[in-house]
């Protein structure tokens, strides 16, 4: 294994930038951060040894700017770059540019990113590798880029409802559900447009639509020497608007035999593109327990911590070591790795818990859960400004316990300790999922959230009105002017300093 870099540039923000910085520090590597000028107060900046200002212009001009990121690495003398997830993490051009600049890329080969990024190409490779894919318009015989006429014909064969997908899309983006044949032409046109504008790739394809499937993914790891292993599954079926809200491992939907065949398929998928490093193979699992390849994420996954918790590993450390040329740890290859207990991740989003629309504002109060079996990976805290230009993920709560039932109870306990004021969050939705009989039974699918009973907006109890009045600073009140700030005192010093309590 090559020597550790002295400095690592983390080309990201939010919780994942903090997550990566923590492992870097533990390895004796200086984490170097980046930020858009207006994001200088970003939570992640406080966790870096130093941070580089990428200038103004929003994400496009900063976190997504390859030249600016390379310049930041140069000016900070960082010799390695970790992209995190999102932003440029699955951009083959960036991976090449980093290597081209003589820097260490903490990620898979650019080539593998490209092959998996092109969904049509990826599906073809999977079929060739014998990995089942979701039935679609691009069957073996089909043309790579068929005409809309041909797609309309294919659509009729596949049957409705079906999904129109952009070849460049993924993660719920560039995808439209079509229920009736007559809506297909419009959907094709829209998807062509989105594909072109978002991914500079207008090619689209059709996929069979499953009413209530499960999304189960497998963590895979490959090294430079051709070994590829899987680190078991993550159940990701709790979604809203095609985005994950809660993940757990192990999945109650898998028995040992199914786990083994899916795991093998995941390894085959990675092998098929010469994969090195950490990746995730997403499968769709239908009611009859048939599984189909959906896509492969060629980066660290948001929900990687539940795998870390059940296996007692640090996946970011493994990414760095493998990028430096280390082989996969022997126990991983020897099949000695066995998950212990059950782990659940809850994603706290700044969004309306009912309509899932993002919320912005400033976090005025932030108290995190803690204690046994509780891990919090936060990208926000008291004082953090939540804007509209970035992902609304505030933090991840990861709970672990000996079994699924106690993990769920632990998640509910921890969630009830989480206090966030100033920005609305999806905490009530998370609580509703944890309380739903469907989730607790384990027999749920991607339509779980849609089927939750609508939650009546709770009326504030008397104590809440009283607290509000106290905080509003009713002059006449003998109580503190603010419920969460110290009372006034006669001491002129306190008068001004008291307010600073716990700030």
């Amino acid at each position, binding site marked *: 294994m090559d020597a550790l870099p002295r400095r690592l540039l983390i080309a990201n923000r939010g919780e994942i930038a903090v997550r990566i910085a923590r492992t870097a520090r533990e390895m004796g590597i200086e984490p170097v951060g980046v930020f858009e000028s207006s994001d200088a107060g970003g939570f992640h900046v406080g966790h870096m040894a130093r941070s580089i200002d990428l200038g103004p212009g929003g994400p496009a001009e900063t976190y997504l700017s390859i030249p600016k990121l390379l310049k930041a690495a140069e000016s900070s003398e960082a010799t390695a770059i970790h992209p995190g997830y999102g932003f440029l993490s699955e951009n083959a051009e960036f991976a090449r540019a980093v290597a081209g600049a003589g820097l260490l890329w903490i990620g898979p080969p650019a080539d593998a990113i490209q092959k998996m990024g092109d969904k049509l190409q990826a599906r073809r490779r999977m079929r060739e590798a014998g990995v089942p894919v979701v039935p679609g318009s691009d069957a073996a015989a089909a043309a790579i880029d068929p005409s809309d006429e041909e797609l309309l014909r294919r659509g009729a064969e596949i049957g409705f409802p079906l999904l129109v997908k952009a070849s460049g899309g993924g993660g719920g983006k560039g995808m439209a559900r079509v229920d009736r044949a007559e809506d297909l032409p419009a959907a094709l046109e829209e998807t062509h447009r989105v594909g072109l504008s978002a991914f500079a790739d207008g090619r689209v394809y059709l996929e069979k639509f499953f009413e209530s499937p499960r999304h189960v993914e497998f963590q895979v790891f490959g090294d430079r020497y051709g070994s590829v292993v899987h680190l078991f599954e993550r159940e990701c079926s709790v979604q809203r608007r095609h985005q994950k809200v809660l993940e757990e491992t192990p999945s109650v939907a898998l028995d040992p035999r199914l786990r083994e065949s899916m795991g093998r398929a995941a390894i085959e998928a990675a092998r098929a593109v010469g994969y090195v490093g950490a990746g995730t193979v997403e499968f769709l699992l239908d009611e009859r327990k048939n599984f189909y390849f959906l896509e492969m994420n060629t980066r660290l996954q948001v929900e990687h911590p539940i795998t870390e918790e059940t296996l007692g590993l640090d996946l970011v450390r493994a990414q760095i070591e493998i990028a430096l040329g280390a082989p996969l740890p022997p126990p991983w290859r020897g099949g000695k790795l066995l998950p212990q207990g059950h782990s659940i991740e809850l994603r706290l989003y700044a969004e309306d818990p009912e309509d899932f629309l993002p919320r912005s504002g400033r976090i*005025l109060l932030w108290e995190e859960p803690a204690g046994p079996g509780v891990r919090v990976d936060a990208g926000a805290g008291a004082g953090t400004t939540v804007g509209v230009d970035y992902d609304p993920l505030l933090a991840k709560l990861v709970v672990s316990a000996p079994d699924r039932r106690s993990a769920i109870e632990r998640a509910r306990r921890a969630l009830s300790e989480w206090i966030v004021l100033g920005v609305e969050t999806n905490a009530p939705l998370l609580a509703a999922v944890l309380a739903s009989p469907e989730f607790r039974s384990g027999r749920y699918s991607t339509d779980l959230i849609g089927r939750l009973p609508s939650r009546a907006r709770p009326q504030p109890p008397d104590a809440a009105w009283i607290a509000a009045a106290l905080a509003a600073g009713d002059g006449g009140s003998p109580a503190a002017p603010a419920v969460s700030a110290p009372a006034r005192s006669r001491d002129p010093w306190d008068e001004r300093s008291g307010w600073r309590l716990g700030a």
Partner: protein
Amino acid sequence: MKLSEGESSIDVVLEDGVASLGGRAVPFSTRRSGAAIVAIEAGGESFGVRAVREGNRVFVWCAERTFEFRMDPPAGAKRTRVRPSAADSGGLLSPMPGRIRRVLAAVGDAVTRGQVLMVLEAMKMEHSIRSPRDGRLVRLACAEGDLVEAGVALAEIE
């Protein structure tokens, strides 16, 4: 003072450990940690509470839920950061904070119910803003590239 939450709006007066909530008298007591109140006992029940005021909004955590109260500003003080509500505007409101990516209609155009008038991008997703009814676009309050708050008027249909 006058406080509102959701649809309800009442007068709250606190005096010597008794709160008058819209006229209803509720005895209460508080428990502090350091100097901050962290619990309120009311009606024989004890609630952990937190509350923070910003501008004319008071955010409260109580009974493991959060609530957002609005207060009527004292005479003279200027109103600040009130999120405009549908009531404040006759027109088409932004459903969330975001960036106007495309505007697909011009002032004077005849528009039909459901027609996409503009595309709002927020959190890496595009949201179509559609006309609520048939009519004519009489006002366009935003342009492509604009950053808009939730609830602000984007356009007006007659």
